[in-house]
């Protein structure tokens, strides 16, 4: 039965609870199949998939999956014995929940107050409160 080793960078490491994972499969395992399988087993990872689902462009903003120096597309088959790196994207990044939005965001001008949570417009509320009047 073919198998491959998967190495997870943060935040994927936190979502699957481990740095590396060895998986085996029967037949063919595409990257799309892998995400379906991981999503079914790891709720945190499932919660962070793009709202569009397993769609190529949206996934490219969430993750870069690399084997032998090349980025895999969703329908690429993972080969037996492959060492697969699950990395943050070259640019962007996708996440559905807002759980981190209470981070220590900073008001560059120091002139506003707020909770640090995002407003309905998607702005950190400090910036929204301070931000330019239209």
């Amino acid at each position, binding site marked *: 039965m073919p198998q491959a080793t998967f190495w997870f*960078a*943060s*935040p994927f490491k936190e979502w699957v609870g481990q740095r590396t994972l060895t998986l085996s499969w029967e037949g063919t395992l595409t990257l799309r199949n892998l995400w379906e399988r991981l999503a079914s087993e790891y709720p945190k990872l499932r919660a962070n998939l*793009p*709202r569009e689902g397993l769609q*190529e*462009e*949206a996934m*490219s*903003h*969430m993750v*870069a999956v*690399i084997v*032998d*120096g*090349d*980025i895999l*597309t969703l329908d690429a088959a993972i080969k037996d014995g492959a060492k697969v*790196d699950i*990395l*943050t*994207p*070259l*640019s*962007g*990044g*996708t*996440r*559905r929940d807002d759980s*981190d939005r209470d*981070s*220590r*965001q*900073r*008001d*560059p*001008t120091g*002139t506003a107050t707020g909770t640090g949570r*995002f407003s*309905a*417009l*998607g*702005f*950190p509320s400090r*910036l*929204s409160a301070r*931000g*330019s*009047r*239209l």
Partner: protein
Amino acid sequence: MFGYMGKVLRVDLTARRTWDEPLAEDLLRQHIGGSGLGAWYLYRETRRDTDPLGPDNLLIFLTGPLVGTKVPTSGRHAVIAKSPLGQWGESDSGGTWGQMLKRAGYDGILVSGAADAPVYLWVTEGQAEIRPAQHCWGVDTYDVDPLLKAETSSKAVVLAIGPAGERLARVAAVMNDGHDGRAAGRAGLGAVMGSKRLKAIVVLGTRVAPVARHDALMQAVKQTAPVINERTKSRRDYGTAGGMLPAAAIGDAPIRNWTLGTWDRFDRISGQRMAETILKRKYFCAACTIGCGRDVEVTSGPYAPVRGAGPEYETLVSLGSMCLVDDLEAVALGNELCNRYGLDTISTGGAIAFALEAFERGLLTTADTGGLALTWGDPKVMLTLVRQIGLREGIGKLLGEGVREAARQIGGGAEDFSLHVRGLELAQHDPRSMNSLAVAYATYPRGACHRGCSHYLERHGVADIGYEKALSRQDPTGKGAMVARTQDYSGLFNSLKVCQFIMPGTLGRDLVTYLNHTTGWDVTLAELLTIGERASNLKRMYNVRLGQSRQDDVLPRRILHEQLPDGGAGKYTPPFETMLDEYYAARGWDADGIPTPETLRRLGLEWTIPDLPGKNARAAAPVR
């Protein structure tokens, strides 16, 4: 007029005089703002023989129509001048200065002449004053910030040069926002500011440009901001260095002055490592919803103290992997020193890596370096050279000229490993990994610039400019045309003054919506892309007037003829000339890279036709 303050501030430092100049709306519809509008001013007000470091150069600061609105990331400003590298020069920066300039009552500031002693400019509520700055000369950009706020207002925002700009280093940046370390880094524009003895521009105001369709703009922002936030999550969590590990994996991130394909230390300088160690908080520029900025703190150890702006991807590579330095805290200190001295981190790191290789090859010796052995991977060597470049001391005086001039003076074949285009050191993305960068670097008017964003489009596509999906990164098919389109498209961000980092969550039609609701115009996407194309061609014509052509659209020998031994970019060099031919054809330029009269007329740039070289100019004469 909506979306604009409707005027720029003119400053003649020689005469020590300031005055307001109105902006015409028809001009703005042709060029919008930022570097697009800056091209119009610079073309008309400098000459072929203008000395970049002389009083005749024009130093331009411009915002755009979206600056001051709630459009995500719309808080940026452009800096434009004839570059001390010899051609078109532009750079841009985030932070809060651009937004505050507009609140102070101006869409931009145009500085001509040169003061006979150091000065700074204080601009507030539609008024401007030239003040003496002798006491600030020599003070670094972090320390001058509170100094000038004490003389103006604690709520003011300061843009300043450091010692590198004062001493005319061609790798000098124009910095803003003090410890937050925002930089208009590229093209040596800090030296232009230094040549005018203009230490700083301090701005403060409460004015607001009117928006034509307020509710509609708010609705558009409400629809797009969540998508932008979702698709930029990694940037928020890990900064631009969140892309470090995949960049390393596909061979995009250069190592050891572009000679190695793999390096097992990237994880030590990654965005993830920073988040786990020295990151104190995320930094948001004005109106930003992404927060890729890093605010770091190092309180102990050999590189303490470091406090303030942290290194982003380009800096981590230029001062890190390019020099084989794997100590994150050392790179953080190097970044702070660059910010304080007012240095472009990309060019500074490129110059240091060049010096390390020159020393290894025996072209530099300890006799040249004051006894310092320039060895790879030594953080102290990297930091010493940053200091020397920033203060223009020792070997740093030569390296501060940039690698092109340094190689010329060192000789002995040093040109072969001085990596630049038009004198501007390569950004930290390897064209051997994503081959569109070969054409992008060679043709961008300011030199080797990654902000044409072709490498982004290779990964993701932008549907409504004709690219539905990602392209193969080493297949050259269609890449020349793609670079032309993406340079026009990404140039729009530089004219509107919104950050290119919203690209993952926006399309061209979103830019159209933002612009029209703000200004009350009825611009279509096709028209907007034509405005982008106009800006690209006007910048090209600026360089054509200087005598540039295909012979200047070249890449370093190392990129074209030396293959990396392994890694994601290994055993490959880009088929450059073929892609370049395709690029020229897509642009409507001739085989020598010169815009044709027909192209210039189509774009409303017929007034530049007399500056075409010989044959084209003569052909155009009857029409004119």
